[in-house]
Each structure stands twice: as structure tokens, then as C-alpha cells.
């Protein structure tokens, strides 16, 4: 009887230890590699389009977008929901940073201002793809936390949605992330 009990302890401890290692090390590494690979593909595709004449390599729109992608690639291992929440909380207590949130938007708007409309649309498409990639990464980097927070946040978001501030909130958070990535990509 006691042997069966012991066997169960050993097997369960080993299995839980393996699951812990799989989730916190192998899975996290895999998610970061997957995100980086996708971002590299976007960056290479942008490079190819610019080489084919979309715009010039020294154009600020290309430079800003590439630097932002570089920032995401470099700090992909730190991009998770926990850090975003910490950043959000810290920024709300720093009035100077509140103003800087719109820095990325201002830079990209300034950079694309003189471009033909079709090129501007292309740049915006790349940015949207970048956002989608980032959202997927944030979810897969901390799925348990995301599910926990979403189950709480969805009813709250619904109330926010009714007051019309949800879109503004999401937009501010994306701008904050992009500004951080741009600053990191220099």
C-alpha cells in the first residue's frame, strides 16, 4: 500500500515539475521565437517592397516602422501582459509620459504626410499587421493570465464600451507600446 502511495507521489511530482519546465521555459521560448520569426518576415517583406520602389530607404516612414519592428524583435522576451499592465499603471502616475504616448502616432503621421496615398495605405497595412502580431503574442505569452483577466475585463469593457472610452483606451495602449518599441529600436 505504502509503495503505491510513494509511486503516486514520485510520478505526480515529476509530472508537475515537467509541466512547470515545459510552460515556463520551453513554451515561453517557443512563443518568443515564433513572434520574432513573424516580425522578421514582416520586416523583410517591407524591405523588399522598399527595394522595389515603394519609397526610399532613407525615408522617415520606413525608418520609423523598421526601428519599431526592431524594438519588438529585440524585446519580444519581455513583451507580456504583466509588463504591459505595469507600464500602464506607471504611465498613469507620470504626467510627462502621458503626453509622450502620442509620440509614435505623431512621428508616423509626420513621416507619411508627404507620401502618395497608396504608399501611405501600404505603411498603415504594415502597422496593422504589426498590431495583430503583437496582440497574438501577448495572448500566447501569458495565456492563463489573459484568460483570467479577460473573464474579468470583458464585463468591465462592456461598460466602458457603452461610455465610448474603450476604443480610446486600446488606442492609447497601442501607442504606448509602439513608443516604447521605437525608443528601444534605435
Amino acid at each position, binding site marked *: 500500500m*505504502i*509503495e503505491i*502511495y*510513494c*509511486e503516486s*507521489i*514520485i*510520478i*505526480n*511530482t*515529476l*509530472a*508537475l*515539475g*515537467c509541466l*512547470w519546465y*515545459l510552460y*515556463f521555459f*520551453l513554451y515561453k*521560448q517557443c512563443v*518568443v*521565437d515564433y513572434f*520574432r*520569426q513573424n516580425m522578421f518576415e514582416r520586416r523583410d517583406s517591407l*524591405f523588399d517592397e*522598399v*527595394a522595389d520602389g515603394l519609397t526610399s*530607404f*532613407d525615408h522617415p516612414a520606413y*525608418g520609423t516602422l*523598421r*526601428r519599431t*519592428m*526592431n*524594438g519588438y*524583435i*529585440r*524585446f*519580444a*522576451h*519581455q513583451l*507580456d501582459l*504583466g*509588463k504591459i499592465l*505595469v*507600464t500602464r499603471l*506607471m*504611465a498613469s502616475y*507620470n504626467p*510627462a*509620459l502621458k503626453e*509622450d504616448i502620442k*509620440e509614435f502616432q505623431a512621428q508616423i503621421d509626420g513621416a507619411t504626410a508627404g507620401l502618395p496615398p497608396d504608399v501611405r495605405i501600404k505603411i498603415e497595412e504594415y502597422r496593422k499587421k504589426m498590431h495583430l502580431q503583437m496582440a497574438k503574442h501577448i495572448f500566447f505569452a501569458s495565456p492563463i493570465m489573459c484568460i483570467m483577466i479577460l473573464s474579468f475585463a470583458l464585463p468591465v469593457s462592456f461598460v466602458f464600451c457603452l461610455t465610448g472610452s474603450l476604443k480610446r483606451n486600446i488606442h492609447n495602449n497601442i501607442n504606448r507600446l509602439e*513608443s*516604447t518599441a*521605437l*525608443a*528601444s*529600436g*534605435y
Partner: protein
Amino acid sequence: MAEKKASEANRLEWAKFSAIADIIGSVLNNIIKWSGIVAVCYFAYQSIEVIAGKETLFDLCFNVMSNTKAATSLPFAVGFSGIGYGLFYRRQNKKTIEHFEYRKTKLEKKSDPGRKSSNITRQGETRPGDKL
């Protein structure tokens, strides 16, 4: 000129802010990560404590090892083989990335001499200085 200076100051402020957030986020993540294994060890200890003094540890381990059935060890063998295969394949992937990265960078620099890099390692891994 003043605008450029302000932009540079903003960039530095963001980088500083981001570094502080990284440290706090990293501390929280590490607490979550390591508390998992501490919980596993704690429950294992609690379970062992119940049978403490009834048999020696050596006897128990010997009996368990000799009585472990193939039905229990087979899933572990499959699991560990999978992990080993994944790690081996990952290492091969990194070698392939390193092999092609140099040529790609060289070719891209011909078209864009001011080409900026993401500054990760040539194998596509996080730079040691960026790890927290």
C-alpha cells in the same frame, strides 16, 4: 535643433521608463514562475511527511523503482523523448538561422547602407545584456 533635442529627451525618457517597467515586470514574473516549483516541492514534502518514520527512504525508493509498471513509465519516456527531440530540432534551427543571417545582412547592406539591426544574436536569440 530644439525640437530634435526634445525628441531625443523623450526617447531617453521612454527608454528609462521602459527599463524600470521591465525590472518590475520581471520581478513579478519571476515570483510567479518560481512559486510554481516551490508549490510542487511543498506538496511533495507534505505527502512524504505523512509516511515519515514508517520505512527508510532507500527501501521506499527501491520498492517503487522495482514495482513501477511499463504503463506508468511509457508516457514519461514518450514525453521526455518529445522534449529531447524538440530541443535538438531547436538547436538545428538556430544553426540554420546563423548560416543564412550573415549573407542576408551583407546583401541588404548593399541596398541600404544605413540598415538598422534588431541587435539580437546571430542565432536569433536574446542578447545576453537584454536578459533580466
